[in-house]
């Protein structure tokens, strides 16, 4: 296909590095991860360096982001969950900025690769497991045994709880990756409609107005999805951390 909707996700090395048979090249994915970290840091450092008592526009934006994530974490994991605030806030900012960089045409979307989101999800789940066992010892296993369940049902409930816990890293990583992937593919497919209709002459060009309007609407939707997925990742992280902090429910 001339305009392959998958081509935008291709990882290409920019600075080829190979150490001991391992391909450690600096790729376009690495470049945009660096851009994400630089963008998030620059936003937060530059906007809060003034430290005005009456915040300006940029400082308000940074403070609102901070307060938004802090409120999410406090609501779902309680006040002792605030010790994980740097972790959750970093995850939220990284995903949000990576998603928003990806919205610029010709830019690479870091979060549209499952390996990136899988690593983020594993970081969350391993934190939950290690912190849970470190804090509560074997009491952490109470997470899988809900109280007040009749004895006959208990074995089934335990199996279901274990399975649902095991599927968490999978669903956490696939949700983010598939949302970004599907959204960007949809944009490219509609853009392909415009190109192929435009080559049909005057009637085609008039007909191409419809997909152009659809692309505008989809781009707006994608901005919503980009922010929403970062929020969903942050809130699910908070809920899972709540399990590690208070396993008996």
């Amino acid at each position, binding site marked *: 296909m001339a305009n392959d909707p*998958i081509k935008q996700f291709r990882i290409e090395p920019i600075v080829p590095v190979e150490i001991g048979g391992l391909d450690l090249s600096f790729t376009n994915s690495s470049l945009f991860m660096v851009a994400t970290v630089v963008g998030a840091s620059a936003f937060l450092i530059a906007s809060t360096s003034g430290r005005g008592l009456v915040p300006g526009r940029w400082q308000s934006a940074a403070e609102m982001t901070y307060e938004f994530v802090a409120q*999410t974490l406090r*609501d*779902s994991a309680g006040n002792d969950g605030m010790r994980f605030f740097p972790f959750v806030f970093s995850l939220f900012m990284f995903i949000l900025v990576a998603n928003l960089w990806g919205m610029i045409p010709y830019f690479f979307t870091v979060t549209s690769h499952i390996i990136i989101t899988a690593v983020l999800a594993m970081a969350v789940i391993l934190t939950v497991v290690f912190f849970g066992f470190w804090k509560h010892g074997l009491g952490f296993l109470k997470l899988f045994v809900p109280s007040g369940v009749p004895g006959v049902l208990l074995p089934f409930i335990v199996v279901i709880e274990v399975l649902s816990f095991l599927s968490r890293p999978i*669903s956490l990583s*696939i*949700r983010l990756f*598939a*949302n970004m*992937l*599907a959204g960007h*593919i949809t944009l490219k497919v509609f853009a392909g409609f415009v190109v192929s209709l435009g080559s049909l002459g005057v009637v085609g060009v008039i007909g191409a107005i419809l997909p152009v309007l659809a692309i505008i609407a989809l781009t707006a939707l994608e901005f919503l999805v980009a922010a*929403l997925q970062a*929020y*969903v990742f942050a*809130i*699910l992280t908070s*809920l899972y951390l709540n399990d590690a902090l208070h396993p008996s429910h």
Partner: protein
Amino acid sequence: MEAEAAKFIGAGIACIGMGTAGIGLGHIFGNYLAGAIRNPAAADGQFGRLIFGFAVTEAMGIFSLLIALILLFT
């Protein structure tokens, strides 16, 4: 039947799952809205739970979309 044709049919069938996930999402947002209109004061406090239910339900639709994409592009 050619394998290529079967792939496209399979991708189409996999997309039915997205429609059913859409039904579930409609239930979630519809019931949230019904509750929010009855008691608007309590609506904002439940927004986090709304998004949690949305995320967990949407995951099912996304899984079937993923199957469709794998069938189409690999």
